């Protein structure tokens, strides 16, 4: 079973919920595959603390030009067709700006002179980590890199390989509701939306809900820091959003989180809270984990 943990924005406790659910399932003796899809700012490893490998570089395809074969000035077909302005005509030849390239391969398809072949460019690294009962995946995008999707795709492929051995795959999605999130949500069975009881939190939850309804993925919500702000329960009821459970607000929880420690182990109440959420997901997602 593949469960994604998402939220309309950062800082609502998405990683907290995802990592504590992972810990719960490990404690239940299940095999867990965990994927941190936030390749811009992966944080889950700070909490689960798996033993990490040195990582492998992840590449995407980019065009390579053979200037001798190129027909030159009169042609410029590739430059005209590239929609991402990754190619410009400069000083008598095609100049690729591979940072802008999406790797679509249109230029290669279009070149009448077979002057374009395919090379690769590194977008970041993928790391694999291990804990007893858990395989961990994270990606780290090069700083300033725009192409997150190839890296997320690579992580999900790795997790799919692991999934044959895992009882549950947990995906910690990037924040927001734009393309990297959509990429992360592909083929998941159920999504957990984490929100917090503030106007910002509920506003952003609304955006995430719209996205999941559009993608037709079953979901429910977890209220993090419940009791800290406004009444989120009423908001969920009014909007027909299923409540999966709450993580109660406490200074103790905030301090535990700040140290990079797991809430699950911080107090019996918190352990109970995550256990209840995990059980509710299981019954909602309709299938034994």
């Amino acid at each position, binding site marked *: 079973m593949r469960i994604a943990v998402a939220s309309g924005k950062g800082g609502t406790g998405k990683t907290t919920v995802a990592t504590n659910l992972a810990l719960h399932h490990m404690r239940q003796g299940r095999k867990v595959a965990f994927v941190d899809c936030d390749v811009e700012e992966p944080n889950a490893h700070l909490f689960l603390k798996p033993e990490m490998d040195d990582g492998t570089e992840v590449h995407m395809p980019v065009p390579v030009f053979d200037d001798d074969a190129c027909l030159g000035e009169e042609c410029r077909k590739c430059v005209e067709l590239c929609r991402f302005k990754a190619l410009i005509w400069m000083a008598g030849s095609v100049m690729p700006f591979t940072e802008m390239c999406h790797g679509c391969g249109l230029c290669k398809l279009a070149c009448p002179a077979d002057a374009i072949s395919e090379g690769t460019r590194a977008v970041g690294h993928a790391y694999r980590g291990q804990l007893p009962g858990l395989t961990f995946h994270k990606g780290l995008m090069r700083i300033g890199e725009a192409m997150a999707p190839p890296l997320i795709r690579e992580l999900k492929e790795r997790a799919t390989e692991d999934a044959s051995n895992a009882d549950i795959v947990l995906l910690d999605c990037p924040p927001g509701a*734009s393309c990297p999130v959509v990429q992360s949500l592909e083929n998941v069975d159920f999504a957990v939306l984490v929100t917090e009881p503030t106007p910002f939190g509920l506003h952003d939850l609304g955006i995430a809900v719209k996205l999941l309804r559009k*993608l037709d993925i079953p979901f429910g919500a977890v209220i993090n820091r419940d009791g800290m702000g406004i009444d989120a329960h009423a908001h969920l009821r009014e909007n027909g959003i299923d409540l999966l459970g709450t993580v109660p607000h406490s200074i103790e929880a905030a301090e535990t989180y700040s140290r990079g420690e797991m809430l699950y182990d911080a107090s019996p109440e918190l352990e109970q809270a995550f256990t209840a959420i995990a059980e509710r997901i299981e019954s909602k997602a309709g299938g034994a984990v």
Partner: protein
Amino acid sequence: MKQLVVISGKGGTGKTSITAALAAVAENAVLADCDVDAADLHLVLDPEIDKEEDFYSGETPVFDADLCTQCGLCLDNCRFNAVSTDFQPIKENCEGCGVCEFICPSGAVSMHPRWCGVKRVSRTRFGPMVHAELGIGEENSGKLVTDVRRTSAEIAERDGAEFVIVDGSPGVGCPVIASLTGADACLLVAEPTVSAIHDLERVAELLKHFRLPSACVINKRGVNPELEECIIGFCEASGIPVVGSYPYDAAFNRAQSERMTVVEYDPEGFGLTTRNIWEEIKQFMV
């Protein structure tokens, strides 16, 4: 006119609340919300919308079923799994590259501008505000951010405003680069948690490329004093002055619920803190 961008690397650090607080003390500023993925500034500033424009970026294919012979070439050549087996575009996966249009021998595919969201120009009690809303599941937030930035700078020039205060985008990717490009100064909001410090380091790395004068504000002071020292140490080593801090306080949430900035909610306490921070920022911006 000076453009200050407020960023934090990680979300949830209070960046938007602090941007709103600065808006309340800065006289003569234009405000811009560049956190287009999770635009929240309007929840506090209650803008009255003057102008709303659709924002288009890139292209999206349309398949004509009457012309399609189901030859499968588009399916084979699309690298993004964005063509379904019944020859319809899967918009969520589509990058708009146009390979399908190019490869189709029957002319069944045409490319059209892609709607990505809306851009708004509004009035608030603290001055003009430019904000945007990205369509659900849309991409190109970087371009929308650039558009918001450009419009806010134009308004500032037109009105003779002294500052543009930008609520920046999270992360270290395309949108935050678009938030920072051409800015005059950057304010980092940091909270004393292990994960926020991790992100602060990544975003400080990014800032090196921009060589912007930067300063840091610590939010949620008191949650973890040890990590506050860490932030201060890191900022010192990176040449980023710490210009103030806010304590961990429920007032932030209460102010938010009342659609107020913390400056309005608590003029004597948070109001004063914010004024001091703003004075410091003005110093290093010039």
